[in-house]
């Protein structure tokens, strides 16, 4: 059995058929996971200034760029193993660099609250065995983590939920559009306006307190009566909810306090984003946006988005991420004006403009390690096939040596 590094569910029941050190077939992995396990067609090759090079020269050049930079940033990490992330944090300390990951424009805020123990949470196994009310809020689990509903939340039979989705569970979707998850929730889909989550939460708090809510009273009272009956409820908080209430997270804490049998779980996309958040939190007390400047400094200006806006960084090391394809065009202009070092198994948009490219093994497929699932459980990643490429952890060790 192998573990799939396709998303933060880290499914560990995948069968992979290998022939001549090539992946021939995958069983039980969803389409997203199967594509990830089968790997990319265009493997990255070592290069300096878009010219082919050898690995050692590329590492030396990368070390030179980082050494000469006044304010370097280390970014990515969500697609690396915990071991590589720990090495990355060490590297940032050594360089006095800024370190940030994709969670600064994703679920970082929410995960920080979890690590600070602001919410009651649970594991996915507990969800499978006990959960009767499932609320997918601002999250399209069906598309983002395709096996979420079938493996853990809605469809499976659990110890206390022997009749599964047919009678024992109710799935509710709260979203701005009728996503594929909302289609499964059928009669329990609550459509809200974009940025309408705050209003919806306040109305729900009113309804749970016995008041008549000002906003859509009939629907909210109906939802409140379902939530009140929960023996073990879970709110799967997606990025839609996080983005909408990021300035006022306390109202979500307030809502969680109103419904005693409810738990909140962050819906994480990248397979080890939570791993980076936990590793950095253990070291610094913050989940992202940190600068090692003699001491630990945490500020919004150390997020990749702010750094690009303020043009405050002069070199960028990217490990396993592709900001050029995921960030807005207005922001990435600065990316093209500074030296970029890209460590990745595949050719990406970012690697095409990088000053130095260093290929690595695909973690969880060509190299082993550990990762942290979206609920905080540590999962072992096994090596499925052999490869000549070095793991990102090993490359970062060499890079530190070259410094």
């Amino acid at each position, binding site marked *: *059995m192998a573990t799939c590094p396709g998303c933060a569910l880290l499914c560990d*029941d*995948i*069968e992979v058929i290998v022939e001549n050190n090539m992946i021939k*077939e*995958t*069983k*039980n*992995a*969803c*389409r*997203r*996971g*199967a*594509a990830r396990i089968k790997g990319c067609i265009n493997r990255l090759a070592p290069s300096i200034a878009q010219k082919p090079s050898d690995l050692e020269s590329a590492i030396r050049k990368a070390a030179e760029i980082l050494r000469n930079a006044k304010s370097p940033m280390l970014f990515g990490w969500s697609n690396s193993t915990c071991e590589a992330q720990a090495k990355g944090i060490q590297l940032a300390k050594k360089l006095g660099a800024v370190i940030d990951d994709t969670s600064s424009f994703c679920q970082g805020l929410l995960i920080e609250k979890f690590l600070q123990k602001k919410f009651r949470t649970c594991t996915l196994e507990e969800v*499978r065995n006990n959960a009767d009310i499932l609320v997918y809020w601002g999250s399209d689990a*069906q*598309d983002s983590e*395709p*096996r979420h*509903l*079938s*493996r*853990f939340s809605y*469809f*499976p*039979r*659990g110890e206390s939920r022997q009749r*599964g*989705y047919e009678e024992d569970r109710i799935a509710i979707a709260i979203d701005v559009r009728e996503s*594929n*998850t909302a*289609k*499964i929730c059928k009669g329990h889909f609550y459509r809200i306006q974009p940025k309408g989550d705050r209003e919806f939460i306040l109305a729900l708090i009113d309804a749970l307190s016995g008041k008549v809510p000002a906003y859509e009273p009939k629907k909210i009272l109906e939802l409140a009566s379902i939530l009140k009956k929960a023996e073990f409820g879970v709110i799967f908080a997606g990025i839609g909810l996080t983005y909408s209430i990021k300035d006022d997270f306390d109202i979500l804490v307030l809502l969680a306090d109103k419904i005693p049998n409810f738990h909140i779980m962050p819906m994480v996309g990248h397979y080890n984003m939570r791993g980076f958040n936990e590793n950095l939190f253990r070291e610094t007390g913050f989940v992202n946006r940190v600068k090692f400047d003699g001491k630990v400094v945490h500020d919004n200006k150390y997020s990749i988005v702010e750094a690009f806006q303020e043009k405050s960084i002069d070199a960028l090391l990217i490990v396993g991420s592709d900001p050029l394809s995921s960030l807005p065009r207005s922001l990435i202009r600065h990316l093209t004006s500074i030296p970029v070092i890209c460590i990745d198994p595949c050719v990406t948009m970012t690697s095409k403009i990088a000053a130095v490219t260093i290929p690595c093994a695909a973690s969880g497929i060509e190299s082993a390690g550990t990762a942290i699932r979206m609920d905080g459980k540590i999962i072992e990643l096994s090596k499925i096939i052999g490869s000549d490429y070095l793991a990102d952890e090993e490359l970062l060790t060499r890079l530190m040596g070259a410094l």
Partner: protein
Amino acid sequence: MVTVMELYQLLPKTNCKICGESTCMAFSVALLGRKKNISDCTPILEENFKKQKEKLESLLLPSAGAGETGMIVHPEICTGCGNCVVACPVDVANDPRGAAIGCAPTNDKVIFRVIDGKVVASNIKECRRFGKNKVLCYACIDPCPTGAIEFV
């Protein structure tokens, strides 16, 4: 999916009984249920019905790959989420410690499996829509948000 009326409209509507059915309407029901072929209706093979015959063939083409229960899985729109694997009552009964609890199937008795990120149906004779005591089960169609499974 094509309806009986759509097929009927394209037939000669003479109720000639050559096909063995009592009416053209009965023939179109048999055609949709894959109990009869277009070639069983000899009048439609004539030159003046050429266009209708071509239209009939194009309408019946999507169901050509259907199994014995009439199940068609569209691999191009399947996301491999496995909802059908876990929701299928036959899978639950045959694999209570695997597919029933959301894990990978532990034996070969299950109907649905996810291979290379797409669902593949096997053991089709176990399907509740098959055989003498068949029931109109929708357990695999309802949980599929993309509509990748259908019965014809």
